[in-house]
């Protein structure tokens, strides 16, 4: 009995000590276990990012570049590349110590990782806005698609060049080029997008389709009064949603439809059972200002119903308030749907974010 008691006391003591040990060593155990396998990063393991950055700023630019390239070679996957941020940031600050020609040569001749390529491209554009010399790299084999996309994203390419990229690429670069074309010239972007959607008879890549969907959505969003081809294109977008095999393409078709500033299309999205709630929320979010206007001055039961449907997907307090203050609502006081929606907004509503025009 005495022995048993001693045994249980011992066990309890060991267990308690283990638990206390766990509490006090939790963070350090975690940190130790998280240590990586890249020996060249070991010198920085006890430093903060600011300390690493300050230290690397003192380095010779070429030595720093070579150090990063060597670390990269040791990395077998991407998950630790976030650790390179202070080193890459220090390198980027040294942009003026490299000539344009040196940077182009590095991009042409070295088999660099995307983070080094994009750092050099960033450095290039910090030094000069001239982009012509980089265009051969876009069509060459030395750069990763990520770096090509980054070049298109932060450079200022002429619209004709952007059109060429959309035509000749079938990857992320295509989509980025279309985003830039939309900023540079929405009319041209629309024509390119329309051609892909309505005039191309052969099968096009998912990226080209997404680029085209961005183009038509962006165009109608910026030109709410333009009706040209709107019906034709919206039917095409619905067909893409219903029939395309790729989910991202289908989602982008709905995003484009919700940008077309049409009550009918918003209603289509809200009514369609195949469209998931996230896409419906995005569509309501995109049309919040229109819905607020309708809540304030709806002229028909149909318009009121659209507001109610939207508020059952994404209840917005300000819109609930506008509805309550609308004297026209008295004509619908018998409607249970109105009462239920107002109650739903009161219980679940959030402050609206009216960032879309």
């Amino acid at each position, binding site marked *: 009995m005495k022995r048993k*008691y001693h045994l249980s006391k011992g066990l309890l003591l060991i267990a308690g000590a283990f638990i206390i040990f766990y509490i006090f060593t939790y963070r350090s155990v975690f940190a130790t*276990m998280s240590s990586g396998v890249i020996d060249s*990063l070991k010198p920085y393991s006890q430093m903060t*990012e600011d300390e690493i950055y300050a230290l690397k700023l003192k380095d010779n630019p070429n030595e720093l570049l070579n150090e990063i390239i060597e670390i990269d070679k040791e990395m077998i996957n991407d*998950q630790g590349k*976030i*650790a390179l941020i202070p080193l890459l940031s220090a390198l980027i600050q040294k942009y003026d110590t490299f000539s344009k020609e040196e940077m182009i040569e590095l991009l042409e001749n070295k088999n660099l990782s995307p983070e080094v390529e994009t750092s050099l491209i960033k450095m290039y554009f910090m030094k000069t806005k001239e982009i012509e010399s980089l265009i051969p790299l876009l069509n060459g084999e030395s750069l990763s698609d990520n770096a090509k996309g*980054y070049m298109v994203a932060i450079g200022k390419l002429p619209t004709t060049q952007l059109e060429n990229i959309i035509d000749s690429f079938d990857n992320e670069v295509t989509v980025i080029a279309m985003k830039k074309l939309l900023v540079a010239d929405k009319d041209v972007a629309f024509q390119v997008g329309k051609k892909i959607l309505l005039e191309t008879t052969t099968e096009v890549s998912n990226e080209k389709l997404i680029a085209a969907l961005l183009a038509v959505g962006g165009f109608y969003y910026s030109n709410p009064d333009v009706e040209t081809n709107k019906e034709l294109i919206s039917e095409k977008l619905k067909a893409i949603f219903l029939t395309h095999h790729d989910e991202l393409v289908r989602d982008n078709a709905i995003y484009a439809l919700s940008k077309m500033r049409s009550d009918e299309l918003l209603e289509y999205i809200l009514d369609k059972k195949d469209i998931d709630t*996230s896409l419906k929320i995005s569509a309501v979010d995109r049309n919040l200002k229109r819905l607020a206007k309708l809540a304030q001055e709806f002229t028909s039961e149909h318009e009121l119903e659209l507001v109610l449907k939207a508020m059952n997907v994404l209840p917005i307090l300000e819109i609930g308030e506008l509805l309550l203050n609308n004297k026209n609502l008295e004509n619908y006081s018998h409607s249970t749907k109105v009462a239920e929606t107002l109650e739903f907004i009161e219980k679940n509503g959030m402050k609206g974010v009216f960032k879309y025009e």
Partner: protein
Amino acid sequence: MNKAKSLVRKILICWMALSCIIITSVSISNDVLAAAPWNGYAIYRSGVMWNLNDHAGLMDGNTMNSNNPVLHAKGYGDTVKLDTWINFTSDDALFVGIFKPNNCTITPMMAGYFTAKARELIGIPYNVLDQIVYDAGSNYWVYPEDISHLRCDGVVEYVYEWYNFRVGGSDSNWNISRNLLANYWEHSAFFITPRKQHTELLTFVQSGVPN
């Protein structure tokens, strides 16, 4: 003698109880006793390179066992995407914890709002240099379609700050979704990183996985 034994036993029981209480308090913050559904919450795992930084994602599913529960920008060669729990945590990384925006209660509606906006970012390529890369022309706000590249912490920052929950940045230029050079600058390089984001800029919810 029996009295002494009983006293020792009581002390030991108290010792165990105290330990359990402390462990629980390590795992769950005093601020929020949250539970599933976890969609809309930010999650972090350790980076593995000498523990120099971490990786961020947003919960899209209710728990880690949901189908593709994580939305994240994993790395080069990848885009923002919905992914499995295993692909988020990776083999040799450790889960850091679950976080939420300061002064925000993530209701089911709010979670839907967050995940809908996050899904609008799917397909955007990764970039490590800055949280976000965009060209929004003369727009007042930066829309998802203006963004060309995102870093993992940029996904979290954009979604929360779109809905005006401040994560990082100076008092006047904190909103990553505001199309201004100063705001862009506040979110470039390592002014904010995944680790700074969860250690300094968000509210800790728990260190346990979202199950």
